[in-house]
């Protein structure tokens, strides 16, 4: 009889643990959803309005009577300012949620990111360049953004291999990183664990490898 309450408390503990993990996961998913909506709002709202303004100014420019150079110049200046503003909006949008990640998926988004880093980073996806990895996509992308930028500064070649897998009947994404220090794995860890995934950093002959498994659901 005395064991019962203990047993009960054990069950409720692990239930709480599972509940916490589920809450953590849901919180993370809600965060990505919110970010996607924000990016979309920026695109359909402010950005759309600003590019429409550029076009309307182009129409007005045609209506300017010949010989009014100052007015033409003024319109050109305003258009240039709007171009700069749109560039800034794109930059903000990329920090919130890269549209390429949303529309084309993890592999194209990582390739674009790597191209901007100006470092010898190779993304290997084999036939899976267009495969979608669900919730694992933002977790891995945002987990890699900062760590990768720091690791790329060393100039050492980095390889990132992405492969789809299955664990307990559910789809998952496997990411294998070579040529990066443990800090990249650590940066990934929180986001990956939030979704119930794992990060394993091991030292092998040629340096360190980081193996990441993330559920896609």
């Amino acid at each position: 009889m005395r064991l019962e309450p203990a047993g009960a408390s054990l069950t409720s503990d692990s239930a709480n643990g599972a509940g916490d993990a589920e809450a953590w996961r849901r919180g993370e998913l809600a965060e990505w959803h919110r970010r996607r909506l924000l990016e979309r709002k920026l695109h359909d709202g402010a950005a759309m309005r600003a590019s429409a303004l550029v076009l309307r100014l182009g129409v007005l420019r045609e209506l300017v009577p010949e010989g009014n150079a100052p007015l033409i110049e003024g319109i050109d200046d305003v258009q240039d300012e709007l171009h700069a503003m749109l560039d800034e909006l794109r930059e903000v949008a990329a920090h919130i949620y890269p549209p390429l990640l949303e529309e084309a998926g993890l592999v194209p988004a990582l390739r674009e990111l790597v191209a901007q880093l100006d470092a010898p980073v190779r993304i290997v996806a084999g036939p899976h360049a267009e495969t979608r990895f669900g919730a694992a996509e933002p977790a891995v992308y945002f987990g890699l953004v900062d760590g990768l930028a720091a690791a790329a500064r060393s100039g050492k070649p980095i390889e990132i291999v992405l492969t789809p897998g299955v664990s307990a009947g559910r789809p998952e994404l496997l990411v294998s990183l070579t040529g990066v220090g443990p800090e990249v794995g650590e940066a990934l860890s929180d986001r990956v664990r939030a979704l119930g995934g794992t990060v394993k950093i091991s030292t092998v002959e040629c340096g360190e490898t980081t193996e990441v498994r993330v559920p896609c659901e």
Partner: protein
Amino acid sequence: MLLQAAGHEVVAVAAGGDELRELLATTPADVAVLDIRMPPEPDGGLTTAERLREVNPDMGLLFLSHYAESHYLMRILRIGTESIGYRLKEKVGSVEALSDTLARIEAGEIVIEPVLAKRLVDRPGAQRKDAVATLSERELDVLRLMAEGRSNGGIAAQLFVSAKAVEKHIASIFTKLDLHPDASVNHRRVLAVLRYLRSQRDED
């Protein structure tokens, strides 16, 4: 409005890709202007363009987008390599820019957003960096214009030099980058240049 100011006739306007295809089935047009992110989501502009090209291969296609991404450029060039364009919405904000873009598409050229062409030339795939670094400033100017899809004549006009001088630069670029010279067919040359610059990312 800007299209009309530039002297073009807008024959039909549709909210989404499916409506546009229906309209264009009965209304002939020289060029269809699409947004990559138009309905049906997520990239309805691309699927709509594929179908339009199948039904009417002679109609020009112009993609206007808020983003200029090499990923989409490659997908667009898979739809077709003639009479096709990809530009940032705000960069066709003058009658000159819009008319130049449309005229080039009508002439069968590929029109690529200069911002994107510049990015590809300035930040080529890691394996191509050393070769691109051997080009002179002038050759880089020419390469950027080639990556925009411009013809020899177009490059010469932009740089205020003779077509002969452009030919010489192009020959030198092709030798330095070890590309097959096929300057006679413009769209093939554009593809060769773009594939070359992006190579590292597409090889996997």
